């Protein structure tokens, strides 16, 4: 199986290349022509997967000053919730623990199953998702949008440091599925990336 990878090299021993080998080489050449890009077409820094597939919204000072959260919404309506870069909890990159045991239940214990997303809990925008501790100071993270909670990032339990290194990707908090009508309402209270940057003076 691995050898097929190197079949771009010409056969070493004999010079009698039979027709099927020639056929294959011809196919490979055609394939290469299609696959190998023109360097001049490549941008220096391509858009990230998030930039290409999500619209980024922000909720500054959500229910409390300094509690900035993001809502990345995919074209299919699903929203990834997390801490925006200017969130107070992230200020000194000192996040030490994440606890999903808030409110009435432990959010990391939900088991959503099936295409219909059975057992998903319906939460309001101000429902607590988890507690993030920075130097023993707890900060509550909330849903920001009304909808069904599909998933929480339980890797944060073992690796709270993900919030310090990449809060906007591997350190996401949860995935929520809002109903279309609910989203239209909640959307109005969120800021676009541009407006958020201006507000927080980020370039």
């Amino acid at each position, binding site marked *: 199986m691995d050898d097929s990878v190197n079949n771009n090299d010409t056969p070493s021993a004999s010079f009698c290349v039979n027709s099927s080998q020639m056929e294959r080489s011809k196919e490979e050449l055609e394939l290469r022509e299609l696959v*190998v890009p023109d*360097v001049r077409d490549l941008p220096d820094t391509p858009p990230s*997967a998030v930039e290409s597939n999500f619209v980024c919204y922000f909720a500054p000072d959500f229910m409390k000053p300094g509690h900035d959260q993001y809502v990345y919404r995919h074209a299919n309506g699903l929203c990834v919730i997390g801490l925006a870069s200017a969130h107070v909890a992230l200020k000194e990159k000192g996040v030490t623990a994440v606890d999903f045991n808030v409110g009435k239940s432990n959010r990391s214990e939900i088991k959503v199953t099936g295409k219909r997303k059975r057992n998903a809990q319906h939460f309001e925008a101000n429902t607590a998702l988890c507690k993030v501790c920075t130097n023993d100071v707890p900060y509550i993270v909330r849903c920001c949008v009304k909808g069904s909670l599909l998933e929480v990032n339980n890797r944060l339990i073992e690796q709270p440091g993900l919030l310090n290194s990449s809060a906007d990707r591997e350190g996401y908090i949860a995935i929520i599925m809002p109903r279309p009508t609910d989203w239209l309402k909640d959307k109005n209270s969120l800021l676009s990336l541009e407006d958020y940057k201006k507000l927080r003076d980020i370039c």
Partner: protein
Amino acid sequence: MSTEVSQVNGDAEAHFAAASEVTEEVTNKDAQVITEAIPSLPSHVVKDLLSIGICVRCILRLFGVRGCTYSCFSPLPLDLHLSIKESKGSHDCTVGNCSKASENLNSAHVFEESEVKSVCCSICLGVLQFAYCNEKEMLVRKDSATEFAVSIAELVKQEGHQIDSFSLEVSVPPIILANERAICLYMKTKYGSEPWFREMFLAEHISVKDALKLSIIDSLEALLAIKYGGSSFRIRLTYTHAKTSLKLQNFLEKDQGCKRRKTGSEDSLDALGSDFSEQSAHEVDAVFRRSLDGLPDHLFCQHFKLPPERVNQPCHLAFLCNRASVYIGGRYLKYSRNVSQSRWIIDDERMGQASVEEIIGSNMLPILRGDNYKFHAAGREDIDVRMLGSGRPFLVEVQNARDFPSSVAVKQMEQKINNLEDRLVAVKNLKVVGNQGWALMREGEAEKQKQYAALVWISHPLEEEDVKTISSFKDMCILQRTPIRVLHRRSPLEREKIIHWMKVERITGSSQYFLLYLCTQAGTYIKEFVHGDFGRTHPSIGSILGCRAEILQLDVTDVKMDCFLTE
């Protein structure tokens, strides 16, 4: 012959002027003619049956007559008909007898014709009298089996199929079963003790369906110039009788107390009345058949009159003919990053420029002159992912093709598709496959491996060590949570997948871009394996190289499956 007809007609009309019942005199004449033609039949019984409104062919059926008699009245030479020796007791239908029978029955039939103006056979409801309501709700009566066959043949020819054989399917309303049972019980009661009864009557008699088929198959063969048999082309004659089916519905409810299989609520069904559709009649018929089988004779007699009631309206006949689906298999390549595999419409707007399904299907359909096509493929790729290399196996089902799928036609299709101006899609190894095409495609679809070429960017320059690391992995296990981009319609699961091997190819002139070739287990999400999907696919290229990784382009270079590899 024609003078005889008009003379006979005149007599018949005189007798029929006022009454809707068959008169004694006419019945006597008919009976005489029939028994002269087939001497073994007891004339008093024939007379009796005629008087209660049984048609000639049903009488013949009840007496166990088989073979060519049903198709008699045809002008075609008799040596086309099989000469059939009877099994138990019924008469021998040898060629000699047949011609005499044919002549005599022809004249007998003329009497019958005027009868039917007012009444249909109490058993077959006109089916074997070639009387029916057509699609346009018009009453039609054919004078002979041949004429009926001619009208069927005309309908078939109108469709313009290129065929070499045909099969015939007939379905009749099951009230006919009840009618037949009623007549048999009636005869058993009345004539059970007579000497001929045991021999002649208890013989198995052919059904209305089979009699109808026997009467027209030979003619159809001759008219269409093809052989009867095989299953590639079907002619379907569906007889229904809404009024009696409705009555049966009610009978079922009251007596059996069984739950009616719903086609609508009880109120709406009663309100339907004359709107009782043919479709729901069909469903009711099936239920009735079952109930009837389970009903013992004494209970049967309580609900069905012996002999059965007369009906004034014949059945409704629906005619259908079509060719069984033709399957064309092959492999397709997709060169565009803006073409979806199947037709994709959201809010009345098409996603992408075109679809593989439509490009292939719409170019095949007119060549075979079919009604519809259905596209099936072994797996799929995203709209922005090209399908290169050996291509992906696919199957197109063409429904009711008018033309025969010859190898010439298939070559035509391949050329047509591959020479389209915008060259979005190409096809290879096109050929007609039987029903096993399905199994071929589904077989091992989940186990097969796929090969890809991905254009990857990383957030720091590619080191030689990175190249070595990536190439060193063999059969690496990864865990993928359902990617967010499909999470709205798939179950949230964590799936274990295998990356069999990877190879890095540097791109001259770039330090952060490279080509990643990989071979993975079927069902692996490649894009998520590269960018990590918020860390939900682990490990990923990014996590392996300790940096951010993005995927710009993806191409499928090989679908490792055995099917449709050759022409």
